[in-house]
């Protein structure tokens, strides 16, 4: 039993990311923070996962790039970003005013691109850790292969680890039959943590035109619809690996967040919900202490993996 007078602590210490709470916005759903800084102080966040950086600037896919689905949305942004150099010169520069640790999401079409971006960003003092996006379904040049073949993912992870001066999180794709084998492969290859899940590959038709709504035809499904898949994968993987997991996929409330922690995530990221409610991250952070207290727990760590850990007396 928790001592009545103990203060609840939201702190989570992840490789490269000393977080004051377990909440961060998910990559691609928060750009580089500037838009949300109009709504609240970004120092409230546990960390910030910034939009994927690629070697060269990318325009991404043609529009329409988003479509709504039941309890979810599809996106086919196509990794639009100004390129790693611009990000370091401008976006990271702007973020300097905050103390919040930064998780820098990186993507590429070739291994060389990944290594180039990883090396550069990992040398940047403002970056706490790298998040290797091996799973973006919208990059056609081969991105998908990284995310679905364990050997390929492991080899990429190994190479990125070799050039990176910062911890490396690998962001896993859910579009796969056996997530555990994939997770173990990248752990073995040296990953310091996992981010899961990225979007499920989906599609919608326009009933009037009888054509796909998205110009790219297919897109990544995010939002509440995918939460059960995310919870299942985190539950499976967290029991099979010993590196921490940043959980994501459909979180919209503090209770959703608790489910992810119970499943085995050590921290969570919030994506689509930012579009619905720009204040969602600080709201969930504010709701956490009383929910922890109601469960008679005093730290986030107490909650991690509770659904499968043989019961410990707290």
């Amino acid at each position, binding site marked *: 039993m928790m001592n009545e007078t103990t203060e609840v602590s939201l702190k989570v210490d992840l490789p490269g990311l000393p977080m004051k709470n377990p909440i961060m916005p998910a990559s*691609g*759903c*928060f*750009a580089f923070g*500037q*838009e*949300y800084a*109009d*709504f609240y102080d970004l120092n409230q966040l546990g960390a910030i996962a910034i*939009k994927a950086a690629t070697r*060269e*600037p*990318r*325009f*991404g896919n043609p*529009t*329409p*790039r*988003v*479509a*709504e*689905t*039941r*309890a*979810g*949305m599809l*996106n086919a*942004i196509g990794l*639009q970003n*100004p*390129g790693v150099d611009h990000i370091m010169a401008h976006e990271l520069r702007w973020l300097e005013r905050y103390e919040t640790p930064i998780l820098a999401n990186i993507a590429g079409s070739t291994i060389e691109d990944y290594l180039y971006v990883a090396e550069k960003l990992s040398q940047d003092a403002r970056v706490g850790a790298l998040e290797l996006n091996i799973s973006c379904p919208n990059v056609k040049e081969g991105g998908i292969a990284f995310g679905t073949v364990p050997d390929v993912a492991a080899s990429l992870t190994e190479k990125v680890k070799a050039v990176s001066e910062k911890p490396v999180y690998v962001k896993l794709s859910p579009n796969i039959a056996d997530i555990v084998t994939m997770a173990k492969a990248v752990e073995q290859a040296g990953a310091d943590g996992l981010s899961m899940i990225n979007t499920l590959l989906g599609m919608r038709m326009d009933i009037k035109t009888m054509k796909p*709504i998205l110009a790219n035809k297919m897109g990544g499904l995010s*939002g*509440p619809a995918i939460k059960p898949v995310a919870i299942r994968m985190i539950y499976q993987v967290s029991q099979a690996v010993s590196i921490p997991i940043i959980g994501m996929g459909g979180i919209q409330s503090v209770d959703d967040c608790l489910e992810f922690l119970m499943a085995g995530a050590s921290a969570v990221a919030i994506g*689509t919900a*930012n*579009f*619905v*409610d*720009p*204040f969602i991250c600080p709201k969930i952070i504010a709701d956490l202490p009383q929910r922890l207290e109601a469960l008679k727990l005093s730290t986030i760590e107490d909650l991690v993996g509770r659904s499968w850990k043989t019961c410990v007396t707290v």
Partner: protein
Amino acid sequence: MKQVEKMTIIKHRCIAENIYELTLQGELVQSIEEPGQFVHLRVDNGYETLIRRPISLANVNKKAKECTLIYRVEGEGTTRLSLKCVGDRVDVLGPLGHGFPLAAASSGGRALLVGGGVGVPPLYYLSKALKQRGIQVTHVLGFASSAVAFYEEEFRALGPTYLASVDGSIGSQGFVTDVIRKENLAADVIYACGPTPMLKALEVSCPDQPLYLSLEERMACGIGACMACVCHTQTDPEGSSYKKICKDGPVFKAGEVVLG
């Protein structure tokens, strides 16, 4: 400052076939800067309509803290919105985007406002604002048919108003550009909002005057964070430079961005 507010519905009525006029009251109105800005509505707390819907400001009354939106029932979100009653509250994010530059027309000058379908609503707020600044306003409004036409009288009260309809059931038969040509309408500046083909036709047929176009795109965040609503710039049409319609727009000067 953009904000999120549960605004109260104080008026809601059907003004044409599937076209609704919705008046909301709340503090957010104080932050509205210019015509052409829009708000991003969360239709309800449900998961049917997870993401917000962008709707232009059609009228603003800062003293009464009221703003009016005019929307067409398209799909699930606007259908649900149309069922809301006076007294209900709507979750509004706004005001968003950059609107029509009023300063592009100088006092005593002439402005031509060209709208099509549900591109017409923001022009009403614009027209009122221009008129207030002493600018002469002329309107050319295109609708599919008389059944879906609205606000004719309201526009006429502000200045000369020409109507065009696809089927000829109201105004002259044809497109807004036909009217402009036929009536030889000239102006110091043109402001337009409507379907992309209309905006493209204007760009081609009115190359000499300053022309401002309000664009549309499917949006998610509405504030510039998700990259859903970008368009290419005309100086780099194949390259990586871009504008976000929600944040840099929705109004752009003709020639600035590539029309989708």
